[in-house]
Every structure is written in structure tokens, then in C-alpha cells.
């Protein structure tokens, strides 16, 4: 089967478009999250998405309609993590752990009450980008535009807060607002990414491209660009490889990302042994 034949399939075209957009978002946001030691927020919010998906399914809302439930629930939960960190004097990982556990418990209870796990709910666990609908691609494109515009508008503030929250505050930056923007953008991206990699693997899409870029980048801008390139190329390659080899797309994407990280790690050791210490 040649490349053109694979590209002629509608579901492959949809997967490539949506996958690229989602990967771009996750990999760019991932740089900020990893440097702020908030990388597991993706995992926590994914668990909440699972809970919200269970609510949507209980309300007989499927595919794109399920976003009507998932989006507000996950956005509110992301703010909940921030508030818990600020008000309850908890560290970020503890707050993420609490919200994550609540999300997954809600999902399990609702699934149990609703007559057990069905195919739709299980697709949230492992993701299935190849089953993405045209409607979902348009929603992904819309949300991608919103997140990218906000990211560009707040880029300098995000960089300043990531470098040092204290210095950012003395520069007149509303650090609470910027942290809220970051978690809300992450929440939007996580909801979108559920279809691509599912709950189990979502944090890898946020973490691995950023972790690879951090091995080699010689400036912040370069780090963001390298992370974006890896995120996108691993999703595109993952879709092709999984289609040809009949492997699950989500896991293939993650393993390709892991391979990129391994290469970046080795390259760093080979190129500049001083930096490897």
C-alpha cells in the first residue's frame, strides 16, 4: 500500500489534521508545564475527562456532543487544582492527585450505575484518532485557534512566570491570572487530546516532546519550536506506522516520542558531554 493510497482515506486525512493540531498544542504547552513542574496536570485532567465522559454517556451524549459536558467540567477542574494549591496550601502534585482521583472515581461510579463500561467509555481510556469525525475535526480546529491566539498573546507573560514567579510579579504581571490561563489552555488541549491518545497516555504527549527539546535547546524559543516539531512529526508518523502495522495509534505515537527523547538524550551526551552532568 503506497503513501497516496493511505492518504486517500478520509479517516486518515481527518486523523492527520486533528492529530497535528492537537500535538502542536500539547507540545507547546508541555514546555511551560514541564518547566513549572506541573507536567502531571495533563494526567489529572485526563482522569477528570474520563469522569465527564461518563456523565456525557449517561446523558446519552456521544462524540462531539460529549464535549458539551467535558469542556466545562475539565475547565472548572483545572481551576480547582489552582485554587487548591493557593488556598489549601497544598503542593501542585497533591492538588492534581486529589482532582484526578475524584475525576476517575466519578467516572467509575457513573459507568457502574449506567450498566458497566461500554465501547465509547473505553475509547476514552486508550484513544482512537482514526475514528475522529469531521465535526470533531472542526471543533479541534476551532479550539486550536483559540488556544494558539491566547498562547501568542500571553507568550511573554508565560515565559516570565515560568522563569520566576516572584520576578514576574515585580514586573507587574498578574501571576495568578497567567497561571489560570496556562491551566485553562491545558484543560482545553487535554479534552481535545483524549481522542488522540486517551487517558492512559495523554501526559506523554505533553511531557515527552518538551523533555526531548530540553535536552538540546539553546534558547527558549528554540525549545518551544523543537517540542512542536517533535510533537507533530511523531503524531503524523504514528498514524502512518500504526495504519501499516495495524498497531494501536495512541501507543505508537507515544513510543515514537520516546524514541525521539532517547535520540535527543544521546545527542546531548555526544554533542556536549559537559551538559550531560
Amino acid at each position: 500500500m503506497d503513501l497516496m493510497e493511505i492518504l486517500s482515506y478520509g479517516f486518515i486525512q481527518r486523523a492527520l489534521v486533528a492529530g497535528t493540531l492537537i500535538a502542536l498544542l500539547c507540545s507547546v504547552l508541555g514546555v511551560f508545564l514541564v518547566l513549572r513542574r506541573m507536567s502531571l496536570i495533563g494526567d489529572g485532567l485526563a482522569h477528570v475527562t474520563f469522569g465527564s465522559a461518563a456523565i456525557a454517556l449517561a446523558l446519552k451524549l456521544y462524540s462531539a456532543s460529549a464535549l458539551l459536558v467535558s469542556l466545562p467540567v475539565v475547565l472548572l477542574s483545572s481551576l480547582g487544582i489552582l485554587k487548591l494549591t493557593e488556598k489549601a496550601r497544598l503542593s501542585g502534585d497533591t492538588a492534581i492527585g486529589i482532582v484526578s482521583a475524584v475525576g476517575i472515581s466519578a467516572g467509575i461510579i457513573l459507568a457502574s450505575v449506567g450498566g458497566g463500561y461500554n465501547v465509547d467509555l473505553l475509547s476514552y481510556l486508550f484513544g482512537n484518532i482514526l475514528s475522529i469525525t469531521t465535526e470533531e475535526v472542526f471543533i479541534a480546529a476551532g479550539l486550536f485557534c483559540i488556544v494558539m491566539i491566547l498562547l501568542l498573546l500571553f507568550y511573554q507573560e508565560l515565559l516570565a512566570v515560568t522563569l520566576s514567579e516572584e520576578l514576574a510579579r515585580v514586573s507587574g504581571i498578574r501571576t495568578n491570572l497567567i497561571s489560570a490561563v496556562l491551566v485553562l489552555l491545558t484543560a482545553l488541549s487535554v479534552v481535545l487530546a483524549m481522542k488522540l491518545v486517551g487517558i492512559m497516555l495523554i501526559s506523554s504527549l505533553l511531557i515527552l516532546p518538551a523533555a526531548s527539546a530540553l535536552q538540546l535547546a539553546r534558547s527558549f524559543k528554540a525549545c518551544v519550536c523543537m517540542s512542536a516539531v517533535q510533537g507533530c512529526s511523531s503524531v503524523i508518523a504514528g498514524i502512518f506506522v500504526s495504519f501499516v502495522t495495524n498497531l494501536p495509534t495512541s501507543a505508537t505515537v507515544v513510543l515514537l516520542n520516546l524514541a525521539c527523547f532517547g535520540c535527543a538524550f544521546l545527542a546531548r551526551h555526544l554533542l556536549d558531554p559537559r551538559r550531560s552532568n
Partner: protein
Amino acid sequence: MPREIVRAERLGVSYRVGQVLEDISFQIEAGDYVGIVGPNGSGKSSLVRALIGLCTICDGSASLFGVPCARFEEWGRIGYLPQNLGLYNPIFPATVAETVALGLLSRKRFPRRITGRDRETVECMLEELGIIDLKNKLIGELSGGQQQRVLLARALVNEPELLILDEPTAALDPETRERFYRLIADINNSRGVTVLLVTHDTGAIGQHASKMLYLDKRLLFFGSFDQFCRSPEMSELFGEHSQHLMCHRH
């Protein structure tokens, strides 16, 4: 009449562990170079942090440029160099130029952008502080002294009227420390920037500061360096010999 830059009136600061500062009153005027000294845990850092809103004032009041600290928003007039360099992530991929450019954000409005002209301003500042060769290096790869200069460049790049430095020399060797103090004195003299410098190194700061503010939870002394050297209270506190050593200007 000299312009008032900082004023504190019966200022008090407390944390959960208890009161760290009480009944602090002083006034700092434009062009002053004030050394804030005192023993460990005396509240030196808490004082400057309270002034710039990084910790809450529980009693009394304070103002910057005549505006109460709680309502102060002209952050472009202030340059701040924090105590703890460890707050920088060692793997942080920002270059020196990117880090210094962030100092310009305080004078910008949303959406804040770094322009080509800003990059030129950053280069001029790096040149002025003699660190232009570090421009493309990562901040995490620099030595303590180099990092300190980069952070100073970040604090100065927006041309502040008030420069607040919190234990800036703690991680530096004696020679670099002395160079740093001379650099700050030069900035104070040549640009007329008002300086508030927190340090535990009373002798070294005494060589450069025009005023001394001695704290130990309360304000024990505020006045010129000469007054500090002649103060019987300070003499009693330090002992005459130590006071003489501190006050002996090289």
C-alpha cells in the same frame, strides 16, 4: 526638597510563625543608597518584600513614589534583584538575552511584545555591564557571579528609578562581591538611581552606602553612614572595636 521614594510608617509584617517586623518608620529620598543590615532573621528581606507586595503588610503603612504599596502599579519604575538564585531552574533553556528582555515587560501594556528595538536595548545593557559575550548562553549554565550580573541587567534594563537588591552578594567570592558593590555605587552615582540593598555584610556596604538602616525586627538605626559610625547605640550593639572596623573606609 528631595523627592520621597519610599516611606514606611509604623510598618508591621507577620507570617504564620509570628511577627517578623514591627513599628518600622523611615523615609528614603531620591538618589539615596541605603544599606539595609541586621542579623540573620532580623526581617531585612521581609521589609523589602513587603514594600514590593511579595508579602503582606499587617500593620501600619508603606508607600512607593507616594502611592500606597497595595495600590502601586508603576512597576517599570522599580528594578528588583531577588535573594535566591536557586529559584532559577538549572535546566531552564532561556538565554541571557531572553532573560534580560523580560525586564522590559514592566513598562509594556498587554499584549506585551519584545521588539527589535527592545533587543537592541538589551544588547546595550549587556554591553554596559560587560557581559555581552554571555548573550547567547543559557542562564542555568552561568556561574553565581555571572548570573548575578545577568539579573542585575534584567533589573536595570527598564531604567528604574528605584533598585531593590536582596542579599545580592550572598553567593559571591570576596573579590566579585567588592566589584559588585562598586558597580551598584557607580549606578547610584552616575544614573541617580535610588538603591535599597539588603545585606548581612555591614562592613562592606558601609564603604558605599549613603545611609544605613539597621533592623532587628524593630528599626534600631536609620541615618547616614557617618551617624551610624558615631551612634552610641550601634557602638553598644557591636562593640567599639567592631564598629571602628566597619566604619573604617578604605
